[in-house]
């Protein structure tokens, strides 16, 4: 048994690592001018725009099937994220941002399981950082706009219900948590989920291919088929994760905005 294991190891199946995320540029050479994930971002923006443009182009009192789909998609984010979290007074201003964010992330994530694309855009961390930076600007900007600069700093760093000298110790902690850690966790959560999911799929697929085609031992071939079946099962799990991550990102954006708008703690 140990000899077969050694022979497999000697043949050298190299498990996929972070290297699988370094795709070659589509054009442009060393400067990496244009890569597949960048292309996907543009495609996703185009898809989301077209979907809402087409479904809302001819609106009628009795909606067509397309209009109905568009309204359902829009209504989901508008009602179950924006209105529930931000509250009925202020939420309409933020609905376009939230709807765009949700569907942009959703489409980019789903690229991870769409055949022949099969790469979740936000498994490249910089894109997630960029998105989180936009959210950071949004909720801090809203807060400063609403409370004034120093008013917002106080709002974001002084928790309600705590008094006395311990406040001096709490304020830097609140500042770090609300202003510095938030955007980092927002980006990392999205990035890490997409990264891990893609790596898992690549591992099961490449491992299955290796066991099925390149292994000397005939007993390993059925295991390769099982690995393929598992890869398909994991793809469905990934669809769930991809949807949830888009939802969570949008939900947290709404929560941060709502926190910045709140009158008092």
């Amino acid at each position: 048994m140990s000899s077969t294991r050694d022979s497999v190891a000697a043949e050298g199946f190299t498990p996929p690592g972070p290297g699988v995320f370094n795709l070659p540029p589509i054009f442009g050479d060393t400067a990496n001018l244009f890569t597949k994930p960048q292309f996907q971002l543009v495609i996703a923006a185009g898809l989301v725009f077209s979907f809402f443009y087409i479904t809302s182009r001819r609106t009628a009192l009795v909606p067509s099937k397309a209009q109905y789909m568009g309204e359902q998609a829009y209504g989901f984010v508008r009602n179950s994220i924006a209105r529930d979290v931000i509250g009925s007074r202020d939420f309409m201003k933020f609905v376009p941002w939230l709807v765009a964010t949700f569907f942009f992330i959703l489409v980019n994530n789903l690229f991870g399981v769409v055949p022949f694309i099969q790469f979740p855009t936000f498994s490249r961390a910089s894109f997630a950082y960029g998105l989180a930076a936009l959210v950071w600007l949004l909720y801090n900007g809203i807060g400063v706009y609403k409370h004034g600069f120093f008013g917002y700093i106080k709002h974001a760093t002084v928790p309600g219900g705590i008094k006395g000298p311990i406040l001096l110790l709490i304020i830097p902690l609140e500042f770090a948590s609300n202003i510095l850690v938030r955007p980092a966790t927002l980006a990392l959560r999205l990035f890490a989920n997409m990264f891990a999911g893609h790596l898992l799929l690549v591992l099961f697929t490449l491992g299955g291919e290796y066991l099925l085609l390149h292994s000397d031992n005939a007993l390993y071939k059925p295991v390769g088929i099982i690995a393929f079946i598992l890869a398909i099962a994991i793809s469905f799990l990934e669809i769930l994760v991809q949807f949830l991550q888009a939802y969570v990102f949008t939900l947290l954006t709404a929560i941060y905005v709502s926190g910045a708008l709140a009158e008092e703690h």
Partner: protein
Amino acid sequence: MSDNPERRPSGDPWVPFGYLVGGAAFYGGVGWLLDRWLDTSFLLPIGLLFGIALALYLVFKLYLNA
């Protein structure tokens, strides 16, 4: 369902996580800087533990009051 603005969900389940990371990072950073300044090596762990303890205190305080 929080049409009433007074009763918004404080909602973000990641708040305690943010406090813990923020506390450890900030007070750990202070400890690290003091270590470099005073040429010692025990202030970084003390800062880390202090930050985490403070974060826990804050989490308990806020969530028990709520």
